[in-house]
């Protein structure tokens, strides 16, 4: 029986009761500290106010740019079982903090190099379907030729690239702007 994809509906204001059990803000299980990175950021709405009820889901490759495919069971190339899934909710100030393994550059289905990135879904009240975006790493040489970044208008590309934290703990900062001058690039997935 064929059919059409079931429509998306918003997660509403109370999704945390359904999603909290699988919250996973630290994806680094088993990885050595020098390969890990902390990413902090804020989610802001169209009035430049922080969004206190957003949730980010992360999907990413391991340090060698490979994904935890169903067929690939057992030891990962780096000797640990990196899973690649994260789920983190923002706090009342719209802030999130994520710790993960820095992904490696990967090879795409067309054989081209994909710059290291996190694939990100964003859910919240007011979104009838998830937002899809990506976070790239500052200064990575593969960014210049990445097939996805290349499709993004140059003046908006910076919204997808994290910046180095200037204060606080070492790491990266990546903010999400739902609207406005700095509106983050969102993808038609």
């Amino acid at each position: 029986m064929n059919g059409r994809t079931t429509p998306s509906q918003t997660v509403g204001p109370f999704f945390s009761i359904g999603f909290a059990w699988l919250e996973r803000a630290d994806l680094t299980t088993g990885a050595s500290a020098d390969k890990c990175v902390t990413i902090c950021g804020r989610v802001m709405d169209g009035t430049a106010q922080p969004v206190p009820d957003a949730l980010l889901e992360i999907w990413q490759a391991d340090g060698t740019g490979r994904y935890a495919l169903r067929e690939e069971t057992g030891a990962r190339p780096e000797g640990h079982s990196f899973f690649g899934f994260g789920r983190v909710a923002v706090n009342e100030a719209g802030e999130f903090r994520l710790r993960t393994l820095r992904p490696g550059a990967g090879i795409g289905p067309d054989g081209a190099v994909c710059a290291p990135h996190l694939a990100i879904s964003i859910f919240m009240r007011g979104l009838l379907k998830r937002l899809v975006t990506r976070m790239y790493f500052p200064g990575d040489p593969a960014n210049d030729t990445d097939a996805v970044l290349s499709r993004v208008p140059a003046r908006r590309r910076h919204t997808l690239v994290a910046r180095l934290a200037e204060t606080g703990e070492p790491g990266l900062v990546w903010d999400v702007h739902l609207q406005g001058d700095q509106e983050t690039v969102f993808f038609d997935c």
Partner: protein
Amino acid sequence: MDRFAGYRKPAPGTQPEYLHPPYVSSLKRAPTQPLVALPETFSELTGPIFPKNLVDAKACDLTRQSNGPPLGERIVVGGQVRDEDGRPVRDSLIEIWQANAAGRYLHAGDQHDAPLDPNFLGVGQAFTNASGQYRFVTIRPGAYPWKNHPNAWRPQHIHFSLFGPAFATRLVTQMYFPGDPLLASDPIFNSVADEAARNSLVANFDWATTIPELALGFRFDIILRGPNATPMEP
């Protein structure tokens, strides 16, 4: 490489737009810039495959998660998850959450003047089986007021979260109940322009799902995006 043929886009009108002005919360949260078309890379073609032992066997029965039975009308909600080509989506994680029978969520932000039920958490998880079938036992959720417009009430609904085989197939939706008079005025339900697609969010009362002398049954089949017929061109 058939596995990496990519996923079809939904038919026009069968998914909501981000901006749907009758749903007031969408005004300050919907993107205003055009979306950028994403070539499918392995980031979209793969996705988390959760181990089945992640979920406790009791997690699919929301009437047995506390010391006593929750108040309300006990129901079974079951169905099949399949892709657009009718292939079962097997061993796939489903999460649900909902209000209690009085229309109140166990959430600090829910200030609706309706009682909490100490025996109802309103949260469940299950995996589909080898045929893509799933089954939850729960309580029929109550309708509740919200502030979207004067005298706004959400129709009774259960939130469903599905992953499917890939990042591209992630879906969060809501299941509604047949014959609910609140559906006609609900801006979230009516954000789906295509009538047939919209009505696919309404479960069917189903004798086969009913448990005699125990619980009425509702069938809610869920369809995830289907793979493209031909492998993606380089």
